[in-house]
């Protein structure tokens, strides 16, 4: 099993995640894109952890990334809810108080 396949998958997922973050108007979808990008990064860690010299180290990183992603998702969603309370929408096009 060649390790490049993992990298290919992760690259693709990362690109897709980036595209989601940039294009989608819905704030929750943007969060989903971020999670997807974090997962793409995790795939790399896990793939690298199979090989020497430091076998398994990548898995720790993956675990921590998952934890941070969870925290990020929790805080991010909380913020989205506050934004929704305030603007009555989470469409990022309409949240433009900073517009000059």
């Amino acid at each position, binding site marked *: 099993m060649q390790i490049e396949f993992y990298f290919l998958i992760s690259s693709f997922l990362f690109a897709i995640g*980036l595209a989601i973050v940039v294009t989608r108007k819905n704030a929750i979808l943007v969060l989903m894109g971020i999670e997807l990008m974090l997962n793409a990064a995790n795939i790399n860690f896990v793939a690298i952890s199979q090989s020497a010299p430091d076998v398994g180290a990548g898995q720790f990183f993956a675990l921590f990334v998952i934890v941070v992603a969870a925290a990020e998702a929790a805080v991010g969603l909380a913020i989205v809810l506050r934004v929704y309370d305030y603007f009555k929408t989470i469409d990022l096009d309409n949240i*433009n108080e900073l517009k*000059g």
Partner: protein
Amino acid sequence: MTQVNDILDWNPVTIMALLVFCLPLLSFIIISISKEKHQVLMSWLASLTMLMASLLSIAVLLQAWSEVYHTKFTWFQWAEYIFTMGLLIDLPAALMLVTVNFIAFLVHLFSIEYMKGDEGYKRYFAFLGLFTASMIGIVLADNLLVIFVFWELVGLSSYLLIGHWFSKEKAAKAATKAFIVNRIGDIGFVIGLSIIWLQFNTFDLVELYSLMGNIQVADGMWISASGSSLSLIWLTVAGIALFFGAIGKSAQFPLQIWLPDAMEGPTPVSALIHAATMVAAGVYLVARIFVLLNIDALTFIAFTGAITAMMGAVAALTQNDIKKVLAFSTISQLGYMLMGMGVGAYDAALFHLFTHAFFKAGLFLAAGSIIHSLHLSNQANDFDAQDMRNMGGLRKSVPVTFIAYVLCGLALMGMPIFSGFLSKDAILLDTLTWANAHQSMFFYLIPILGFGSVLITAVYVSRQILLVFFGEFKGQEVKSIKENSLLIKGVLLILSIMAIGVCWSINPFYSEMSWLMSHIEIPSSAFDIGMLSASFAPSHLMVSLISTSLLLTGVVFAYLKYRPEGQYFRNYSLETLKPQNFWQSLSYENWYLDQFYQTVFINPFHKITSFAKAIDTHIIDRMVNLFGMGSVIFSYIVAWFDRAFVDGTVNAVVFLTGRVGTATRSIHGSKAQSYILAAVIGLIIIIFLIF
């Protein structure tokens, strides 16, 4: 010219004279601020003030009998020129002072009765005070500029008093006319002042006297002691220009038209201003500036005076208004005085001024007394109490007035033993001497005009006396005509006594013995005007005989023509009397001077003004309107240009900026995702650059 001796201190005489000036002024101020209910008291107070002024002026006269008093002080300074003002009291001034004050006092007294119950009673007395003060100002001032100031003030008070009954249109118009005609004369005065200033840099009379003594005439140039020189013609022009002021004020030809109209004023005013004092101011001015006048100017004055004397006398022949007869006779007598001045009879002219002041004031006040009586007897609106056609036979009802009138009238005619005889003969004598001194027969015109006027004067005075006092009363009588109160009678009697020659000369047939004339010295002039060292001195007796015989001829002629039984007298009524022929019309209309001015000056002026008005409305206004429309159109174009191009440019810039802003805003536009996108693009670029 710097003046070494700027200030001459006050002395008791000049202080007294100043007091004399201040008293009527005080009366003017007090009456002006007093209440209406005190007006009768105030008028008595004013008369008292005038009495005090008269007594003071007599005191001044006694002091000034043989000495000249002069006080002056610096008025203001302009550059290196010092303007002074002050009082110059010589004998003519002191005499004039007495005359003005005394007649003003009598007129005040007379007015208390005459103006009783008038609406403008208070105003009248206030203006009388103003007038008297201004007149005294003219008399006393030592400075041509100050004289001019008072000259104008006198004109103003004359205007105010002629227009006393300003609600009457005729009175208002007469006042305006008098004022405007006087202004025409004043233009000459101002021109004369300018020339004098140009040459001498001073207006002070005493300095002018001494400077004129030092001038030299060479090569047709007029060189003053300080070296400034002008062409000699300017000296003549200056004299004539100054005299032109006198022409206006003294109602001389060709400006005499205002005086008959001025009779619209109250009769005491006519007596004071338009007979005795103000109109004599012109003569007095000529006396004051006598040394400034050269031979040409004097000749001009003599001819003006002679012509006026004749014209006035002729115009007086056919008037129907009792006051207008007197007005024209005043013009005529003023002409006499100026004629006297012109021929160098300085003393005689002044003498005539003083005698005339008294008897003419007497005549006017007597006329006023008659008018007053008639008013009291008939107050119907259309009743003209001044028209002689409403009179006749009044000698029985107003005997005192009759006597006063006859006495003063005889003085006016120049009847021997009356005052007018003395002064008039002195003038006539000098004119004859003067004419003799000239080689040309042309100069005999003046004595001929003078003697002719004597004849005509006799005729019109007799005519007036006959028409007013003899025969039967012609007007409508409501109540019987009664003589006026003691006050008026007293005033009339005083004035008629002054008309008797003994008051003026011990020998009432011989003017040289007059206490007055013998003291007036003819000012020494640079020009040999005197009597021109007359080769032939006409006998005084001969002159007296000629004038007296002319006078008697006139009286006899008048009696024959105007006697109560005659045809003229019977036809003389409001309905029938019209000027019969050309000569009568000429006289009645005052030589058609008014019509002449109307045709030659006023009508063309009206035409010019209406033409100018037409030009204004049709051309200038139209041009202005066109210009306005043009500017409006132009501004519309500019506005369009503004909107289309300037605004367009600005809008284009704004639009462009907006577009650029919108374009750049899409990057900045508050879209977090755009920022992310930009960040990633930046990241890619960095990676490309690194690898």
